[in-house]
């Protein structure tokens, strides 16, 4: 987020604030558990940590209805095209969170079958390191993502003529 904060029209700024408020408070994650981190992701949704407080407990099984792609676990080369497709299948606006060291950079597995970082196939917004990250660590990551969303400018993207239907 290095670009300077442009001063848009007042109305758009208010609209941005409103839209991002809704987006950040209703991040429905796509329940894609890959490995160990998935268990901590579920623990985050369980009673002790309860991400439902942030309105994020609706783990959608279908990518069509999800906003947030939590890549929780090791991404193998065999799984990579699948993840890429699932990411594609999510509707905009969408965010990705790489959870755990394996998803971030291959973690302890510099081997022939492990993708060394999920950012090679999908654009990652927030990295949450750990092996696996604790539930509180994940919540911290999610709140960082919320802050990032709050700083985004959705109206710009909506009004952008170049973003219109391409095919």
């Amino acid at each position, binding site marked *: *987020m290095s670009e300077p904060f442009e001063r848009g029209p007042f109305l758009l700024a208010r609209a941005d604030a409103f839209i991002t408020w809704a987006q950040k408070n209703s991040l429905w994650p796509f329940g894609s558990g890959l490995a160990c981190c998935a268990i901590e992701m579920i623990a985050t949704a369980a*009673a*002790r*940590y309860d991400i439902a407080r942030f309105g994020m407990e609706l783990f959608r099984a279908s990518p069509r209805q999800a906003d947030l792609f939590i890549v929780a676990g090791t991404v193998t080369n065999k799984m990579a095209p699948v993840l890429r497709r699932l990411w594609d299948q999510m509707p905009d606006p969408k965010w990705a969170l790489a959870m755990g060291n394996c998803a971030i950079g291959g973690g302890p597995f510099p081997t022939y079958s492990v993708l060394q970082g999920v*950012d090679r196939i999908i654009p990652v*917004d927030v990295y949450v390191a750990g*092996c696996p990250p604790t539930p*509180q660590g994940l919540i*911290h990551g999610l709140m960082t993502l919320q802050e990032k969303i709050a700083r985004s400018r959705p109206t710009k993207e909506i009004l952008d003529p170049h973003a219109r239907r391409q095919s």
Partner: protein
Amino acid sequence: MRRLRRFLKSFFLVDILRGLAVTLRLYFSRKVTVEYPEKVQEPAPRFRGLPRLYRDEKGEPLCIACKLCQRACGTNCFDIEGKRKEGAKFMRPEKFDWKLDRCTFCGFCVEVCPTSAIRFSPEFRLTGVRKDGLLFHRDQMYLLGDDLQDHLCGGCRRVP
């Protein structure tokens, strides 16, 4: 007779009513949720959070660049180069790169360290928005707490 009782039990939905009673009781029972940002469940004393380098009471670095941790590490997290300054008693790390994204938090480096220079911190908030923030250089290994958070978030300061 037993069959009749079973039938009656089934007809009056006894099993389902019992289940409903359990959920209703839990509805009124105490909640276990720790509301994270406001209340933090403090990590245990032995918690294996982010490893970092410590200094002694005088502020002198404890690390003597013996590279034992580098050798003990199974995932090649470390890249250490040491140098002995003129007249100094011990070597000091010139370069101490540590890759967070390879670490398994197994604790071998902490166990082998002869001077207890590298230790686990209770820091569990390991979030970054850029991947390069996950490579720690020597000076960053000395940071802790909120300072560290600023570093980890790769320049994405909290919005006040």
